[in-house]
């Protein structure tokens, strides 16, 4: 019988939630398998039952402090369907879009500048005590300040549209509870051109890093996969609403223009005994070949173009790197993420000039339904909210497939790949290896908590088990 050893990385750092990595070695100390365990259980899908449908957009956003707007809006879209609001007023739709662009902007900036830039700036072998946002502030205060102020701008957009920077309440079933006053709009208009300039710089930084470290980027956690996202009817990137499109590693369409309300016909979730996070896959490809990636990288791969000029130029440059084929590099997520920031700032600028945002028609209603499905492109990827509501207006069913869940298999693959490169032939966890596993996870997601709907920081624990299943090394780092 083949013997294996297991290495665990627990806790993961600069990631929200709790994660554990176990690395199983064979008798020659080569990596047999690596698993990213999401060890918390939060249970939103259970305790939402019995609550009233209009409370849901406010309750479920508590899943996350980084992307509450995404949950708020996905749930609101589902509840639009429940109350038969099939077409929102222009003011409602545009307010929600503005909120969402602010959300993607602040979250992507947080992800890149606050959480990931220390890895990119200082390298993976650098002292862990320096590899954080404070290290960036010391080393490159100008860059850090731009990141902090861009995030602040995104949050100000959220505050103006949602009522609060975190956990606002403005999206209600059928629309929105406020418009954008001139007094709220003007300060944002005053800053938006500066944000546009900085967003272009951010794209350059991410692009230069990618192209400047191409041997590393093309090797590090790079693997072929399917990709999925919403796209607009004409194939453009659309972060708020659209149709599901999935492509394979060669860029061939698996499905396209799928009404997301039919997602259950196309996707399934697999449960594995060792993780609270499920493993979704494309039904027709099966669980072995049907897993896919979501998020900025996938969106750059699935979208035919971007409908804002600066981001579209950046998108074309991104696609040129792989000659128009899907980009499979985990580290290219960061470049894609900054292209999205640029797109969001362009969209925000355009919306701030739109008089519809001062409109007074905020809500609509239609024929009541029992089932509601809302899908949105959240910062980390496609986010599904699915509910059933009874005749008394109480929720009887809830299923959430969050972005991190969609990327579950991909994150496991990324961790396995890094572990194989870094660890094979030795049974000890080295600092660079610990760092690289974190970097791989962080390229996808700093938010493991919402995937299991768990609360708190995300410390990383790594454990190595030998061929007999004995723990031979263990390193942990607090989040």
């Amino acid at each position, binding site marked *: 019988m083949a013997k294996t050893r297991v290495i665990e990385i627990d806790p993961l750092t600069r990631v929200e939630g709790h994660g554990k990595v176990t690395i199983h070695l064979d008798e020659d100390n080569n990596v047999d398998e690596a698993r990213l365990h999401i060890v918390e259980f939060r249970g939103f899908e259970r305790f939402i039952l019995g609550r009233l449908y209009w409370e849901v957009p406010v309750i479920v956003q508590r899943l996350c402090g980084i992307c509450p707007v995404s949950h708020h809006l996905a749930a609101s879209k589902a509840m639009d369907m429940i109350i038969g609001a099939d077409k929102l007023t222009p003011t409602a739709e545009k307010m929600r879009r503005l909120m969402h662009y602010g959300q993607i902007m602040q979250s992507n900036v947080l992800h890149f500048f606050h959480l990931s830039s220390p890895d990119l700036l200082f390298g993976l072998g650098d002292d862990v005590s320096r590899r954080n946002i404070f290290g960036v502030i010391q080393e490159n205060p100008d860059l850090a300040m731009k990141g902090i102020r861009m995030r602040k701008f995104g949050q100000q957009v959220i505050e103006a549209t949602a009522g609060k920077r975190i956990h606002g309440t403005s999206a*209600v079933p059928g629309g929105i509870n406020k418009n954008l006053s001139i007094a709220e709009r003007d300060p944002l208009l005053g800053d938006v051109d500066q944000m546009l300039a900085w967003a272009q710089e951010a794209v350059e930084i991410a692009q230069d890093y990618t192209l400047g470290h191409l041997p590393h980027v093309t090797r590090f956690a790079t693997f072929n996969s399917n990709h999925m996202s919403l796209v607009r009817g004409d194939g453009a990137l659309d972060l708020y609403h659209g149709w599901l499109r999935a492509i394979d590693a060669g860029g061939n369409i698996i499905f396209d223009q799928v009404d997301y309300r039919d997602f259950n016909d196309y996707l399934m979730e697999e449960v594995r005994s060792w993780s609270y996070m499920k493993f979704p896959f494309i039904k027709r490809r099966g669980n072995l070949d049907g897993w896919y990636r979501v998020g900025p990288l996938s969106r750059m791969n699935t979208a035919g173009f971007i409908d804002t000029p600066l981001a579209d130029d950046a998108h074309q440059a991104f696609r040129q790197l792989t000659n128009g084929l899907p980009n499979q590099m985990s580290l290219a997520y960061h470049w894609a993420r900054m292209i999205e920031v640029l797109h969001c700032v362009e969209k925000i600028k355009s919306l701030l000039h739109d008089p519809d945002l001062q409109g007074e028609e905020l809500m609509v209603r239609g024929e009541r339904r029992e089932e509601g499905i809302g899908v949105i492109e959240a910062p980390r990827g496609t986010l599904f909210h699915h509910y059933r509501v009874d005749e008394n207006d109480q929720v009887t069913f809830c299923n959430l497939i969050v972005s991190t869940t969609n990327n579950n298999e991909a994150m496991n693959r990324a961790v396995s790949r890094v572990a194989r490169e870094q660890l094979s032939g030795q049974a000890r966890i080295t600092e660079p290896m610990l760092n690289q596993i974190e970097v791989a996870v962080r390229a996808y997601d700093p938010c493991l908590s919402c995937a299991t709907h768990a609360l708190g920081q995300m410390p990383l624990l790594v454990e190595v088990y030998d061929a007999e299943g004995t723990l031979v090394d263990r390193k942990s780092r607090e989040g």
Partner: protein
Amino acid sequence: MAETFTFSLDGGKISAHPGQSIMEAADAAGVYIPRLCDTEGLKPQGSCRVCVVKMNGRTVAACTQPAKADSVVESETPEILGYRRDLVRMLFHEGNHLCPICEASGRCELQAMAYRLGITQSTKYPYLQPVRPVDASHPDIVLDTNRCILCGRCIRASRDIDGKNVFEYVGRGIHKKVGVNGDNLADTNVSIDDRAIHLDICPVGCIIQKGRGFFTPIGKRQFDLAPIGGEEKGHEE
């Protein structure tokens, strides 16, 4: 013109008519005494005790205690504020008052009172965490008694204004709760137009008008605009 007399409230002179409660006289003089179970238009019942004051050294409920000539009434003293904080804290611990997800947030008198009294964190009491079924049977109204503070305002409004007796206390002691005159709300003659269902009657999020939650944006909710009891700033704990 009816005969008047005066009494002292925290050192100020307040005029009162015979039969007026301390609270009525204070209200007429523009001096706010905190309260939860009492509200304009309903007969006071003195159950929440948040309006506790000392009259000539004795603790009384300002909403039911008749004002007395030449009496000395203390309200905003450290001792009285301490009593009020404890009373309000206990209300938070008896029910499930999850302000972040409650549609009454921003217009909730319990929440506003906590802010006024400087209660900003959980306290020494255990949370009882009641698990009572939410009654959503009525097409327009929901009753979530997990949030009830037993103020009885709905009971009095339904009985004294609507003439319906839809609500009543049931049970005793710690098991006391608000029940309805039927198997559930749909089984009663309650209507969305009843005074008892008006948003200013239930001081918390126990009685809800269906499908209107979160319609008022943050910043424009009742207590976003002005704190409970007027412009006075909250007390530091």
